[in-house]
């Protein structure tokens, strides 16, 4: 597939989590991904979008999440950005089981799951300005199918 790109911006409410991951997955279908690869992308997008809604905006329902997806050859690049409260310590937040939410009901596995599902995950965050997650996946690499 030649280069293609899309941008999606939506209100930071949990109703939009399913819409966001389904829209990104649909955009990537031209690359003929396997069911597992599409599942990986949907899961990673859902994790990042949920982080923005729950932690970035504190479930306030105010603010927008913006997703940019680019496909080039077999590579999918996804950028998920919010203008929420940001993360004080990104490396700490990316550790497994870390959560700033309810420890009884939140797993703290969001970034770990993103890293497991995608080939690359990078996070940039500025306290009080927002967080941007960059993710990359090469479709057809077959890593997960081995």
């Amino acid at each position, binding site marked *: 597939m030649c280069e293609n790109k899309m941008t999606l911006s939506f209100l930071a409410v949990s109703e939009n*989590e399913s819409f966001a991951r389904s829209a990104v997955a649909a955009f990537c279908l031209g690359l003929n991904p396997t*069911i597992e690869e599409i*599942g990986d992308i949907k899961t990673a997008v*859902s994790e990042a979008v*949920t982080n923005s809604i729950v932690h970035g905006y504190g479930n306030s329902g105010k603010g927008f999440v913006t997703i940019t997806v680019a496909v080039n050859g077999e590579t999918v690049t996804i950028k998920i950005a919010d203008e929420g409260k940001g993360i004080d310590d990104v490396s700490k937040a990316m550790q497994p089981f870390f959560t700033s939410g309810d420890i009884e*009901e939140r*797993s703290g*596995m969001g970034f770990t799951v993103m890293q497991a599902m995608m080939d690359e995950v990078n996070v940039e965050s500025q306290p009080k300005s927002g967080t941007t997650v960059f993710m990359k996946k090469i479709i057809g690499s077959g890593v997960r199918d081995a």
Partner: protein
Amino acid sequence: MNVLAKKDKGDLILSLIGELDDHTSAETRARLDEILENAVFDCLIFDMKKLSFMDSTGIGVLIGRYKKIKDKHKIYIANPSKNVDMIFQISGLYNVMPKI
């Protein structure tokens, strides 16, 4: 998101049907707790066959239920998809809820 409960001898089988994410987690938690508070059973099996999507929010939901009943019941996971299986593996969930 729906939860279907079925008894098989002493086992309580809870089938999770649909998509389990942050948006559906509260209703799923409430439904599971309602069933667990009223059921008589030995082992609990979460059947994931009809769970079409789950992200790490699902881990929190399952661990929350585990903490409530772990002293009296064993809990198992059945039929996860490849994606859900991977989330369970990397989170270590199978250490407390083995896959059958």
